[in-house]
């Protein structure tokens, strides 16, 4: 894997641990939500961060934008060290790195009109004189496929899909280069989901945006991501170009994840790999490879229990598995 010539966002060994318990809680082990994550996002590119609940993907997004402070690691945007910025420089940076949230119902202030919500960023960063703002808000609404007249209405008058579009318009108002999309379509119905995905894709082409797309649905991610990084227990276990990762995954967890996705086609049945056991607790991750307690790889042995595998190139992707070369591929079985 040749690393991108000038990536827009670079993250190295990011860690975010949550400490439970206050003054007297030192004895409780911290929750290792993010446990050493590194990746890059190029300009006009979408990197998807995929995983199930508890894998730490949302924490990565929030920590990257410093909505939470990282425990350790570095992150840079366009060459600038994000974690070293002081408050006013950070505020300036906030204009260029924005976020879209999962829940369309709580991400808009119910007491503010839609127009005021979209204009808020413009006002905070003084990007336009007061007189021009309604014009800007109007064109942003149109850009996301909504009517200009919606600016004077309140969030509760809109459906989930429409509110999500309003959230996108708000993020775009400050003309960012990079957008963290935190499960933006998970709470939406299937057909609305498709509308929003198409919108995000179109905006990327028109504005040259980069996305960190956080999701748990691989099928959704396939529609919009150039590259996918799969997370498990706070670490990236596999990363690679979308089609390569989906057609020949090298990490057993990726294989299991793929086989669990229900495919809307009764004619094809993939041999389903059903993982045994439960997800280990992030405050007490297993020693060695985090996945070994549920791993079905025939070559699994003592080394997996003691040595943490590092991401290394195997086939067309990077995989964190000692035996990635021989990972069993899910068989595609045609059922007559």
């Amino acid at each position, binding site marked *: 894997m040749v690393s991108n010539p000038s990536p827009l966002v670079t993250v190295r060994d990011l860690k975010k641990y949550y400490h439970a318990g206050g003054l007297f809680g030192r004895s409780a082990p911290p929750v290792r939500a993010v446990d050493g994550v590194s990746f890059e996002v190029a300009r006009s590119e979408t990197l998807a961060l995929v995983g199930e609940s508890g894998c730490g993907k949302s924490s990565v997004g929030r920590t990257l934008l410093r909505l939470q402070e990282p425990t350790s690691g570095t992150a840079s945007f366009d060459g600038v060290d994000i974690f070293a910025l002081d408050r006013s420089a950070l505020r300036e940076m906030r204009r260029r790195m924005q976020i879209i949230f999962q829940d369309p119902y*709580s991400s808009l202030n119910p007491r503010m009109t839609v127009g005021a919500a979209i204009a808020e960023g413009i006002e905070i960063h003084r990007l336009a004189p007061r007189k021009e703002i309604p014009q800007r808000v109007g064109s942003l609404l149109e850009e996301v496929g909504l009517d200009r007249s919606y600016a004077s209405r309140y969030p509760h008058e809109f459906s989930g899909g429409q509110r999500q579009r309003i959230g996108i318009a708000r993020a775009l108002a400050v003309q960012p280069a990079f957008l963290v999309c935190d499960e933006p379509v998970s709470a939406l119905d299937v057909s609305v989901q498709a509308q929003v995905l198409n919108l995000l894709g179109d905006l990327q082409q028109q504005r040259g945006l980069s996305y960190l797309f956080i999701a748990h649905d691989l099928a959704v991610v396939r529609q919009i991501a150039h590259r996918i990084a799969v997370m498990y227990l706070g670490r990236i276990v596999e990363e690679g170009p979308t089609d390569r990762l989906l057609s020949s995954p090298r990490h057993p967890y990726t294989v299991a994840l793929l086989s669990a996705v229900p495919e809307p086609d009764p004619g094809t049945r993939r041999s389903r790999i059903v993982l045994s056991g439960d997800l280990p607790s992030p405050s007490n991750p297993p020693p060695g490879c985090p996945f070994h307690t549920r791993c079905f790889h025939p070559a699994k042995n003592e080394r997996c229990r003691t040595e943490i595998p590092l991401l290394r190139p195997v086939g067309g992707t990077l995989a964190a598995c000692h035996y990635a070369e021989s990972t069993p591929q899910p068989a595609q079985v045609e059922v007559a």
Partner: protein
Amino acid sequence: MTSALASVKAAWRNPRGRIGAILLLVVSVAAIVGPWMLPDPLAQPDILGGSLPPGPGHPFGTDQLSRDVLSRVVSGARISLSVALLAVGLSATIGAAVGMVSGYWGGLVDAGLMRIVDGALAIPRLFILLLVLAVWEQVPLPALIFLIGATGWFATSRLVRAEVLRLREEGYVRAAEAMGARRRHVLFRHLLPNTMGPLLVAATLGVGDVILLEAGLSFLGLGVQPPTPSWGSMVLDSREVLVSAPWAGIFPGLAIVLTVLSANLFGDALRDAVDPRSI
């Protein structure tokens, strides 16, 4: 702000709330307009004549100093309502400010402020007021209002703080932070408007509390000082003639009960209306 109006409208639609609101309006209008239309409450035209029962010319009768009870009750309304509104206004402002700062800043600031509040709540308000007022003879009205207001913000601050803690996690607050908003902006644009609901409820119920408190203090001679009329001191004065001229004490007493009741009714209806619904 528009939803505060919506809550008031909803409270109006509630039958109990409407009764409370109407009564409050009646008392307020009487307090504002009444003194111009009624004889001077301080006038003592016939000192030696003694008190007259309610009848023509004196709908509430006169007291032992031949002062018209109705005029006195209405002037007393002015005083009691002003004291209540100003004191509650002061409490609400301080309480909201402390609650917001505490809830949003967190950390040591929050810990420090809340420990002060905890300590203050442990001491009964009445006790503090009695202590201060017993020593301070002839307390001027503004000082009384300030004292009542300054001892009444503690519970409100906890209430506002709880709201802020909840709101802090809401998506739109995080969105504003992600947008690069300054703390002050988030406080006034997003947090304060959304705490107005519970704050309004607490304030309305607080009005009833303060009226009772002031009446009680005045009854003990420690509150509003004569000759300024106050319902509490009117009840105090009527003790001497309780048997011979009961109306001198009944009407101010009724006024207290009615006003407090209506404030509570309206406050309850407001609380029902403010419950988060259409989010």
